C-alpha cells in the first residue's frame, strides 16, 4: 500500500512557515529603524549578528546623567511641561469647563505627550536589548497579526484573531486595550501557543524547536510588557481626567486656583499617588514579576538560538565562556584553600590578596 505522507508533509510545511515567520520577526526586531520596516532582502545572517553584537556592546550605554544627556532630558521634559501649560490655558479660556470640544482635544494632545514620555523615558532606563524589545513589541503584534491571518486563518475561528482596535499600536484607549490583550492572550494560549509546543521533526529538529520556543517566549514577553505599559497609560489617562474634574469642581465651589504652577503641582501629586497605589498593589506586583520572568525566559531561549546559529562559526560562545569562567573560579577557590593550608602548616597567617 502506498504510504500517505500528506499529514507529515503538511506538518513540515507548518514548520517551514513558522521559520518564515520567525525570520520576519527577527528582521523586524533587529532592523535599524531608518531602513524601513519588515523584511529586508539582501540582508544576510552576519548583518544580524553584527547588530546583535552592537546591541550587546551598547549594553551599559544607557543614560548616565552627563551634561549633554541631561540637556536632552530637560528638553524632552520641557515639551511635556508646555503641553500641560496648554491644557491649563485652555481650561482657563473656556471658563473651567471639562466638556468643551477644545478641552477634549487638548486633553487628548496632552495624553499623547504623556504616552510619549512614558515610552521614551521610562523605557529608556531599561537595559538596551530589552528597551528595543519593548519598543518593537507593538510592531511585533502587527506582524503577528499579518502572519496569523495569512497562515492560520483557515484553521481557526475568526474570534481568535484579535480585534482591529487591538492592533492600532497606540494606547489611547488603554482600558479597552487591556481587555483586548487579555482576550488575545487566552486565545493565543488555546491555539497558536499549543502549536508551538508540538514536537518538531526532520534533520533540523533541534533548531526548529529552539526557534519555536524563542518565538513563543517573544510573544509571551510582548503581551506582558504591553500589559504593564497599558496599565501605566491607563493611570495617566484617569489621573488627568480626575485633575480636570477636580479643578472644575474647585472653581465652581469658588476656590480659586491661583496659577499654573499650582495646577502642575496638583497633577504631579495626583499622578505620583496613583502610580504609587498601582505599584504597591498585589496585581501589579505580580504582573511585574510575570513580565520580568517573560523577559528572562525570552533571553534564555534567544541566547540558545543564537548559540545554535553561531555553532558553525569559529568563535567561542557564551556557554563556552561560562564553562571557562566556572573552571577558573573553582581553581581560584582551590588555590586560596591551598594557600591557607600551607600557611597553617607553616604556622603563619595566610597571605591574602594579589
Amino acid at each position: 500500500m502506498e504510504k500517505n505522507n500528506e499529514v507529515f508533509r503538511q506538518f513540515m510545511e507548518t514548520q517551514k512557515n513558522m521559520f518564515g515567520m520567525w525570520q520576519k520577526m527577527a528582521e523586524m526586531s533587529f532592523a535599524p529603524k531608518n531602513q524601513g520596516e519588515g523584511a529586508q532582502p539582501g540582508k544576510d545572517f552576519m548583518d544580524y549578528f553584527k547588530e546583535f553584537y552592537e546591541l550587546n556592546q551598547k549594553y551599559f550605554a544607557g543614560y548616565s546623567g552627563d551634561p549633554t544627556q541631561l540637556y536632552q532630558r530637560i528638553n524632552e521634559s520641557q515639551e511635556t511641561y508646555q503641553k500641560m501649560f496648554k491644557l491649563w490655558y485652555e481650561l482657563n479660556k473656556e471658563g473651567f469647563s471639562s466638556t468643551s470640544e477644545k478641552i477634549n482635544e487638548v486633553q487628548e494632545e496632552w495624553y499623547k505627550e504623556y504616552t510619549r514620555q512614558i515610552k521614551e523615558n521610562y523605557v529608556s532606563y531599561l537595559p538596551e536589548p530589552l528597551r528595543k524589545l519593548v519598543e518593537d513589541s507593538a510592531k511585533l503584534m502587527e506582524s503577528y497579526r499579518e502572519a496569523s491571518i495569512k497562515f492560520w486563518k483557515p484553521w481557526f475561528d475568526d474570534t481568535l484573531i484579535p480585534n482591529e482596535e487591538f492592533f492600532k499600536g497606540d494606547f489611547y484607549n488603554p482600558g479597552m486595550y487591556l481587555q483586548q490583550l487579555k482576550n488575545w492572550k487566552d486565545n493565543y494560549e488555546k491555539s497558536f501557543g499549543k502549536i508551538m509546543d508540538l514536537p518538531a521533526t526532520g534533520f533540523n529538529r533541534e533548531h526548529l524547536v529552539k526557534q519555536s520556543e524563542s518565538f513563543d517566549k517573544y510573544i509571551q514577553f510582548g503581551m506582558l510588557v504591553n500589559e504593564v505599559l497599558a496599565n501605566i497609560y491607563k493611570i495617566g489617562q484617569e489621573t488627568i481626567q480626575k485633575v480636570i474634574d477636580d479643578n472644575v469642581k474647585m472653581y465652581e465651589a469658588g476656590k480659586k486656583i491661583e496659577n499654573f504652577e499650582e495646577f502642575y503641582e496638583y497633577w504631579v501629586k495626583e499622578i505620583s499617588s496613583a502610580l504609587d497605589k498601582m505599584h504597591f498593589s498585589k496585581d501589579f506586583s505580580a504582573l511585574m514579576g510575570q513580565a520580568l520572568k517573560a523577559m528572562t525566559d525570552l533571553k534564555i531561549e534567544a541566547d540558545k538560538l543564537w548559540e545554535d546559529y553561531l555553532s558553525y562559526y569559529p568563535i567561542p560562545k557564551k556557554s563556552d565562556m561560562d564553562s571557562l569562567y566556572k573552571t577558573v573560579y573553582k581553581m581560584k577557590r582551590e588555590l586560596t584553600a591551598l594557600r591557607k593550608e600551607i600557611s597553617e602548616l607553616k604556622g603563619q597567617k595566610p597571605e591574602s590578596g594579589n
Partner: protein
Amino acid sequence: MEKQKFTDINELYEKFFSNAVNKQQKMIDGFEILANIEFDERYKTPKELVYEEDKMKIYHYHPISEKKTTIPTLIVYALMNRPYVMDLQSEKSFVRKLLEEGLDLYMLDWGYPTAEDRYITFEDYIEGYLANAVEFLKKKHNVKQINIMSKCQGGTFCAIYASMFPENIKNLVTIASPFDFDIEDGLLFKWAKYMDVDSLVDAFGVVPGQFLNMCFVSLRPYELLFDKYVAIINRLDNPKVLKDFLSVESWIFDSPGQAGEAYRKYMKDLWQENKLIKGEFKMNGRAIDLKAIKMPLLNIVGEKDNLIPPSSSIPLNDLVASKDKELHSFPLGHAGIVASSLSQKKVAPLVAQWLLSRS
C-alpha cells in the same frame, strides 16, 4: 448662566509667552553652563590603594587632622551602588568630615563585576573578600579589632560578618541597612517577592546594573523620570545647583552589575524568605545568629528613605545582644543620609564621636 472666565485671556497669553520666553532663556543660559561645568569631584579626597583582591580594592584616606584613635575604621558600602556617594563633593563629603573629626579611615570598594564574576557566591563576599579586608587591616595596624561603618546592603553584610567573627569587630555602625525584609512600606520589598530570581540570574549571569536602576526609579517614577528635569530648568542658570544636580545624577546612574550567584542567595534567602531575622540564614552550612553581635552598635535610619525604609533597619537593635546600642533617625533619604549638608553637619559628627568615644 454663562460661565465666568477665570482670568483675563490677555493676561494668560502674556503669562504663556513670558513663561515660554523665560524658560527658553534659562535653557540657553543653562546650555552654556552645562557645556563648561566642572562637576566631577567624586572620590577626590586624597587616598591611596593599599590592598587589592580580584575586583575589590581598599583605599586608605590621607589624614587631614590629627588622628584621635589607633583603631582603623573600614567603610563598607553596598554592591549595587558606588561608595563615592560618601565623597561626592568636597563641601558635602561625609568622608572628609569623618577625617576632620580624627578617624583613621579606609574605604572598601567592591568594583564592577564582569562576566567572569558570575560564580562569586555570597559566602565569597563575606567570608572571603570582607574577611580578608578585615584581616589585612588588623595586621597592618597590629590590632585585634577594627571598627566598621557600613551602609545599605553593606550593613547587612557586616552584621552577618560580625555575628560570625565578633572577635574582630570593636564597634559596628550600620546606616540605612535592611535586616527585616518582610515589610509593607517598601516597594522593592514588595516586588522582590514576585521576582523569579533563578531565571534572572540564569539569563544574565551578572545581573545588569541598569535593571536595578529601573527598579530604583520605579519607586517614584514621575518625580525621578520627569519632574526633576522640569524643576531644574528654573535653576539652570545657577552653576552651583547644576553642579550638585549633575554629581548626584551621575552617581544614581552608576550602578554596578551583580555577581549572579551571590545575588541569587541574597535575594532568595533574605529578600524573599527573610531568613536572617528568623534565624534560618546559613553561610556554608553554618547558621547565622545575630545574637552573637555583642559589640557596641550604632544603627542610623533615614525617615525619608523610600529605598530602605526605617521599618526594615530598626529591628536590628532588638536582634543583637549588644548592651551598648543606639538607634538614631534623621529626616533624610537614602542617599542624603551620607551625601547632604545635613548629613555632614549631623550624621558624620555623630558617627565619628560615637566611634572615637569607644575606640
